[in-house]
């Protein structure tokens, strides 16, 4: 069959995982073609879109500056009706899987927080140590060098003091490439309050340049807008990586919606097929394929691609594709405080409490990460003060008080992989006629028990320590936008989708790196681990193509 495009390596998806693999493959002398479902858009346009949003959409609607194209829909939440359009969610905690990701060139890196925690050795051995979840097929020692490479590849700033580093019990092979980003008043006061009750708020390692330029990006200037978009590119986003890939000879095709993976003899992958915005189909051949188009879109594409050889979908002889869908179920608490806290200075997230994620209790209930949201609260303070009908001096005083003396605390729980938390193909179709993803989600008793026995009481203590006069807990679990598990990794082909290099057990020339491969979600942000897995996969890919 004829093909329209060909390369050594074809990568579907242009997020952090796809971009790092592209760079590694190009450096190894391989030709690379990247296919992106959505459009390629300049930063200024997204910043302008953001500033032209009404204040009610500037916070908590991180998708709002990214209008989806008809051919590459993603979650949009400007109205309740719009929110139901793309992701089809069901189950007891459907609301907690309302995942925000952007189908634009650059992917969800456009509006990620930039937080780069490593896993602990224990996070990778839940089954062995606590009798729950799954173990990783390799140990922390194996991933450590990839973490270090990932930190240098995307430019992570972090503390040099080992007592402020995470994890506390595993050696780093190199320091962070940049020092930490300073705290504003809110994070400083939050850290002191937490310390009084044994909760250690650590400066977050973050893919934001600290004090210096790095990787062609400027230093962070505290624009306090990491999500929905860093206006100056101080934070790593794949958009800044795309020109580098092109400079190395890589090709990037935007508005190319891959809808089928074609298998051939010996069940190797022969081609992928994509629709362009005119609904014309194109065939793309390669020696090796990487599907890295997000934890929801990747399993969706594998399920869409079922054929005679693979009746359950590509890479799915284990029946695990689309199962074990995970995120960190999140609860938030809105506080009013006696004394000013003053958020809104520095990045929107810059620290977290992680010592609460570890312990023997994990055999019974979930560990959790606590943090304070550091976005500027002035728009919330103003809206609340205006609602009171105040005018003149009284209005200004109340805006200042409600902006300074309020806070949002967040707790994100570790969920266990469950085969019942499952992505399937909805009978509903999108603009191109492609099935929308349907996800059943239940956070499980492990998380619910943690909230009851552990995290909500800790949140209340933390609030009291901050001098809270009001405490309002979110009525249900929410999404954290860390999509994991749908292409789960494991040594056994019968029970896992990919091997330790993120290679599909069923197809020698298909790699599925990223959050989908992670066998444990843990309570911390997933991106650095996804990035480390991408680099590990990149090594395997270049070795495989060099040596056949």
């Amino acid at each position: 069959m004829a093909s329209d495009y060909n390369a050594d390596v074809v990568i579907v998806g242009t997020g952090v995982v796809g971009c790092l693999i592209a760079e590694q493959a190009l450096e190894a002398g391989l030709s690379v073609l990247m296919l992106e479902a959505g459009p390629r858009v300049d930063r200024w346009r997204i910043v302008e879109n953001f500033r032209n949003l009404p204040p009610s959409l500037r916070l908590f609607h991180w998708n709002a500056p990214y209008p989806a194209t008809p051919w590459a829909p993603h979650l949009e939440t400007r109205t309740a009706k719009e929110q139901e359009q793309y992701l089809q969610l069901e189950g007891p905690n459907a609301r907690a899987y309302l995942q925000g990701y952007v189908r634009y060139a650059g992917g969800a890196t456009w509006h990620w927080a930039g937080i780069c925690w490593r896993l602990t050795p224990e996070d990778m051995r839940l089954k062995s140590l606590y009798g729950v979840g799954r173990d990783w097929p390799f140990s922390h020692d194996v991933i450590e060098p990839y973490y270090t490479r990932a930190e240098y590849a995307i430019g992570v700033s972090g503390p040099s003091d080992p007592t402020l580093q995470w994890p506390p019990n595993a050696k780093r092979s190199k320091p962070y490439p940049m020092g930490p980003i300073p705290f504003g008043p809110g994070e400083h006061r939050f850290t002191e309050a937490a310390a009084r009750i044994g909760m250690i708020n650590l400066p977050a390692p973050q893919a934001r340049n600290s004090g210096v330029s790095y990787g062609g990006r400027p230093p962070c200037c505290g624009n306090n807008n990491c999500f929905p978009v860093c206006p100056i590119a101080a934070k790593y986003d794949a958009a800044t990586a795309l020109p580098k890939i092109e400079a190395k000879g890589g090709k990037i095709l935007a508005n190319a919606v891959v809808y089928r993976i074609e298998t051939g003899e010996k069940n190797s992958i022969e081609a992928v097929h994509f629709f362009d915005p005119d609904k014309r189909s194109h065939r793309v051949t390669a020696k090796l394929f990487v599907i890295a188009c997000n934890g929801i879109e990747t399993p969706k594409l594998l399920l869409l691609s079922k054929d005679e050889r693979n009746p359950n979908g590509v890479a799915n002889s284990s029946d695990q594709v689309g199962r074990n869908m995970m995120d960190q179920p999140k609860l938030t608490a809105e506080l009013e405080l006696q004394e000013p806290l003053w958020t809104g200075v520095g990045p929107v997230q810059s620290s977290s409490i992680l010592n609460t994620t570890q312990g023997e209790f994990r055999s019974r209930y979930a560990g959790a990460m606590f943090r304070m949201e550091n976005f500027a609260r002035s728009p919330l303070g103003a809206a609340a003060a205006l609602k009171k009908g105040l005018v003149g001096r009284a209005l200004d005083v109340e805006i200042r008080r409600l902006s300074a003396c309020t806070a949002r605390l967040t707790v994100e729980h570790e969920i266990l992989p469950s085969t019942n938390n499952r992505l399937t193909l909805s009978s509903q179709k999108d603009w191109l006629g492609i099935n929308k993803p349907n996800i059943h989600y239940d956070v499980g008793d492990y998380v619910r028990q943690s909230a009851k026995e552990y995290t909500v009481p800790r949140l209340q203590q933390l609030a009291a320590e901050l001098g809270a006069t009001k405490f309002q807990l979110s009525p249900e679990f929410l999404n954290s936008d860390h999509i994991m598990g749908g292409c789960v990794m494991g040594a056994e082909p019968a029970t896992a989708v990919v091997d330790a290099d993120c290679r599909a057990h069923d197809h020698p020339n298909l790699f599925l790196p990223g959050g989908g491969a992670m066998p444990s979600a843990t309570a911390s942000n997933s991106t650095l681990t996804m990035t480390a897995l991408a680099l590990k996969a990149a090594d395997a890919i270049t070795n495989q193509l060099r040596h056949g």
Partner: protein
Amino acid sequence: MLDQYRDDCPTAFNLARRDVLLGGLLIGGIAALPTLAAIAAPTSWSDHSAARFMEISSLLVPHHLKEEIGKRMGAAMAALNPSLSQQIDELLSIARQKNARIVEDFFADVPDGPLKETALSIISAWYLGVVTNAPDAEVFAYEYALMYQPTRDVMTIPSYAISAPNRWTAEAPPLSNMPEF
């Protein structure tokens, strides 16, 4: 269309947020935007109306207000509220009776109901930068929206740099130090 150019969507799917919201109304994409605002403004909204809007705004909001913003915002409010001109006259009349110089001098005399609601909506527009805080609202002011001003000595206006690389600190002035604006 299938290449590496930026902003590469076909015109019909232009990605400027406002074009998407008004998609059905626009034929010529972004070029049609200024004329749309002109169509929306009622013919009775004259320079004189704009001046009266600024006059009542300065009495309701004790801060420096930008005339350019007031001009556009007043026209947009008038398009939504046909009684706006008349209500401005009534508010100005109450203020005049009280020899008011600031809002505290006359606001207690504004009767509850539509007149007070209009007064509050004018104040709200200057603080929020929008006439309605709804998903399809047009934004008249971002960095000049007054909501950011009472905390501008500490808090960042999101997307604007606060100082210089790593130059911010954990220090904050007392709550009672209201900035001048």
